[in-house]
């Protein structure tokens, strides 16, 4: 069975030289001990090299020249705002009766608009700001913080997979990752209790239910349940919550795994 490894997510940054020295060192150490990652990183590297070899064909003859000419026109045309400013300027510089009538009309209109803004009832707010980032209330070990952080990363991965499945003909759900996460959920729940972080506690409980559902669904019947799962994610705001929690735990995550 294919199991998810916390370090897989660092492969891509490793080949692009974008990992911090601590992350790179942790990954190198991990590669010496992990039984599966060395094979996976090799496969990853061959695909990485293939993609790096991508080249676009040259544009057809003459296209580039006509494109350059058209691109130059894009800023020579007057925009609506510029036209409006110019019209105002022309109006203010004339003293005709038409201009005076326009002035009076604008005065009445601005009065009406100001009255409408002042006396109309305020619209209900559609956007409710997310809760602020909470801080950890009691110290926990670095290992436990890393454990929670990786759990959150993997949870975001699962949630994004479900979100992405809407755009695809086939539904992609990593059931092995869901099962691995479900096992990890219990420890994260304990840590959440230990540090008394209600936000994490709520998130873990909701994830637990969701992971249960995903792990137990028959792969052939997954399309029947995907809308229900999406609704649960949307109603519980799991994606926005996981991002807030990631920020909370990232501050306590100076190294990639210890």
């Amino acid at each position, binding site marked *: 069975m294919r199991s998810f490894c916390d370090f*897989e*997510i660092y*492969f*891509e*940054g490793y080949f*692009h030289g*974008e990992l911090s020295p601590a992350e790179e060192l942790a990954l190198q150490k991990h590669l010496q001990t992990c039984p599966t990652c060395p094979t996976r990183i090799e*496969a*990853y590297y061959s*695909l*990485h090299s*293939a*993609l*790096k*070899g*991508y*080249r*676009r*064909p040259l*544009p*057809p003859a003459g*296209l*580039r020249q*006509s*494109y*350059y000419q*058209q*691109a*130059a026109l*894009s*800023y*020579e*045309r007057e*925009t*609506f*705002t*510029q036209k409006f400013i110019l019209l105002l300027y022309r109006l203010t510089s004339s003293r005709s009766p038409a201009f005076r009538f326009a002035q009076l009309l604008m005065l009445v209109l601005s009065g009406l608009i100001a009255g409408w803004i002042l006396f109309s009832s305020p619209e209900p707010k559609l956007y409710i700001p997310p809760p602020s980032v909470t801080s950890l209330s009691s110290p926990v070990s670095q290992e436990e913080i890393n454990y929670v952080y990786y759990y959150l*990363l993997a949870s*975001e*991965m699962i949630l*994004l*997979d479900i979100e*992405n*499945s809407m*755009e*695809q003909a086939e539904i*992609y759900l990593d059931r092995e990752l869901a099962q691995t996460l479900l096992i990890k959920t219990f420890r994260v729940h304990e840590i959440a209790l230990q540090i008394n972080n209600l936000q994490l506690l709520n998130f873990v409980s909701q994830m637990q239910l969701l992971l249960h559902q995903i792990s137990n669904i028959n792969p052939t019947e997954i399309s029947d349940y995907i809308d229900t799962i999406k609704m649960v994610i949307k109603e519980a705001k799991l994606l926005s919550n996981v*991002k807030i929690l*990631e920020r909370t735990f990232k501050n306590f995550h100076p190294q990639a795994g210890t």
Partner: protein
Amino acid sequence: MDPDRRLVRFAKSGNTAAFGSLVRKYRDPVLSLAYDYLHDYELAKDVAQDTFVKAFRHINEFREQSFFSTWLYRIVVNTALDARKSQKRRKAERGLFKEKTAEPSVQAPAEPFLNLDDSVIQALNRLSENQYTVLVLRYFNDLSVREIAGILECSENTVRIHLHRAMQKLQAELRRGKKKR
């Protein structure tokens, strides 16, 4: 600091020559990025042209919290994605009403990607919109995770996850392709 800051400030004050310099600087990268989405230079040209018109119209709304290039690429990505959707819709409609309409088909290039295997191309076409976008920006346009996060207005972790998933999916598709052969 944004290397285009001075030009952007001049362009905001209505200096069209400054905007012209920005267009000259970015016209090739913008065309290339649009091509990566559409694989059709005629359509890519329209998207690139549209991008500059939008950028010129809304330059005063650019708050300079990111680089100008990030803001411009965000416009390209959104415009190209819209064009890609209508391209797909047109193709589907053409397939449905093949006999009824005699609309000429959009000329597709013989080789939309050079140096890439057919299996990789097929696998690329099966990625989701987000996964394809991050892959295009990362591998075909050499942007960093931070820059991509700026363009897509999401966290760096989200970009890493999309990249990781895209690579995993490509590997799986390639393995499946090899087995079939």
